[in-house]
């Protein structure tokens, strides 16, 4: 099990049929389409890139203001602005293909059909390693309840995407739920190959001078270090439920120590989100830190860390 500490540890991990060169991805919406960071860091050294959420047609996004800082966190209500899946495939994907890293297409829709259509459009494209389904969006035909809040709706949307693509499917769980385990189970039953968690917590902030919300959308998604304890707890819960699929931990990860906490609780890989804004090479630093930790502890492969939490 333990290898000589002078060896470079094995960082590769397996997410279903998808092999990642290392367990550190960048989270959707925090890394653009990847190319924006090409000058800031060597994209080839990333485990993967989850691109900004893609819909069938381009979306302009919400009116500003769209973000606000909060203690150790930030709120956003971007409104899922994106170039649309066709533009992504024709304009961005060819340039992304030049890099040796897994490109994961984060997708969303307002209806089950839209999810399936986006997945189908990606199926035909070259250079997408997996599809990540953002289920934190309101289902417009069901009164605006988020797909991810209801096990039946969630299973339906996952099934639809599953049918539309042969790519590995990752379902990205929303944390705004009473019990994440039945929802995680629904996603797995729907055919999800892996789960990523968590998306943002719903939050709000108000300007007391004008008595208006800091976000034009009133509420927004809370991300950053503030949410890390909640994210870690949910990864722990889902891992303990033993659903038999790989987990990708997300939420407030800024350092290798943060990432390792998720791995120990059962994640096979992690995504770095808001931290990219503060240090453009945060994901690389996290990855290097994990490697150093493994060397220091004499662990040969990062996969050996997953789920090794010692419960009292």
């Amino acid at each position: 099990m333990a290898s000589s500490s002078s060896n470079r540890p094995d960082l590769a991990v397996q997410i279903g049929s998808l092999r990642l060169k290392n367990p550190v991805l960048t989270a959707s919406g925090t890394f653009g389409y990847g190319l924006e960071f090409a000058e800031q860091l060597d994209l080839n050294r990333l485990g993967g890139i989850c691109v900004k959420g893609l819909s069938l047609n381009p979306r302009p996004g919400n009116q500003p203001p769209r973000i606000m800082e909060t203690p150790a966190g930030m709120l956003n209500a971007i409104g899922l602005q994106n170039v649309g899946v066709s533009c992504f495939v024709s304009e961005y994907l060819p340039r992304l293909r030049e890099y040796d890293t897994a490109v994961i297409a984060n997708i969303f829709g307002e209806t089950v059909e839209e999810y399936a259509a986006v997945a189908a459009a990606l199926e035909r494209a070259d250079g997408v390693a997996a599809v990540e389904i953002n289920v934190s969006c309101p289902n417009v035909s069901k009164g605006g309840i988020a797909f991810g809040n209801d096990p039946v709706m969630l299973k339906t949307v996952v099934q639809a995407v599953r049918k539309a693509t042969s790519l590995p499917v990752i379902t990205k769980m929303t944390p705004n739920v009473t019990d994440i385990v039945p929802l995680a189970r629904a996603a797995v039953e729907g055919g999800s190959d892996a789960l990523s968690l968590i998306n943002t917590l719903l939050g709000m902030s108000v300007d007391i001078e004008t008595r208006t919300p800091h976000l034009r959308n009133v509420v927004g998604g809370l991300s950053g270090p503030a949410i890390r304890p909640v994210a870690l707890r949910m990864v722990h819960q889902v891992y303990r439920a033993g659903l038999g699929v790989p987990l990708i931990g997300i939420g407030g990860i800024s350092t290798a120590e943060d990432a390792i906490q998720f791995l120990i609780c059962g994640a096979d890989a992690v995504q770095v989100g808001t931290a990219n804004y503060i240090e453009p090479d945060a994901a690389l630093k996290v990855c290097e830190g994990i490697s150093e930790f493994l060397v220091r502890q004499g662990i040969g492969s990062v996969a050996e860390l997953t789920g090794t939490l010692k419960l009292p």
Partner: protein
Amino acid sequence: MTGKTIMTSQFWIVRENRLLGGDCGRLLVETSAESASPPRPGQFYMVRLGHGADPLLRRPISVSGVRMGINKPGGSSMIRISFLYKVVGKGTAIMARLQPGEHVDCLGPIGQGFTVPDPSAPPRYRRPKLAVIVAGGIGVAPFPMLIEALKRREVPVRLYFGGRRSEDLIEMGTFISRGVETITATEDGSHGEQGFVTVPLVRDIPDLPAGKTVVYACGPNPMMTAVVEICREHDLPVEISLETRMGCGLGVCLGCVVPAAKPAPDGRAVYSRVCTEGPVFNGEEVDLGLFQ
């Protein structure tokens, strides 16, 4: 806007941090010229303040000045930039406490700066007879550097500088010693005319060299809206530097947007990122009405 600028995130060493009154200060930071590209007027840096997760995000701060030089002992070349800042919250309060010798992490230079008159610039910026600068309070921050560039190109500069009270009119000494003609206005009348600085601007504008005047503005939004309106009436080209909350400064969070003046063909809004397409925009490009 020539030459490729490389944006870097690195530690700069604080050389001086002087309080200027009116809750404002001037910070000088320095680093090796090999590691950092020189900024252009109107560009900014995302400055990391504090050491923990609160404040979390970097703060956008315009460059006020830049100087290249040689460090005596080693003979290595260095770059020194200055920031003018106003304490308005926790990030800028930390900025005011920085001590010489401390290190501060600045990511930049970022964004599209002002169009500096130049033979290769767009027609109206090729050979202006006068550059009018309109600044409101700490909105003056990018202008010392712009004024340097204008002076170097021998473009006469007139500064309209407004504030709430006289203490808001920082760096007046510098402007005067640089020979910048300066017209001031304060809301409380403690310096210059009482009221908004747009009042003397409107009064003077008919007398400015027609077709040969360019306008640059930075300040609170109502002022910017007024300036753009005035310039439109008098057919003067105006560039405005906008402030919005920024998540990343890298063009990826899409948090900093302003609505473009022209919607998409389908009537839906189009948004421009202030960090990437801005912070300096042509006054006609953006919809300031929608933008709070």
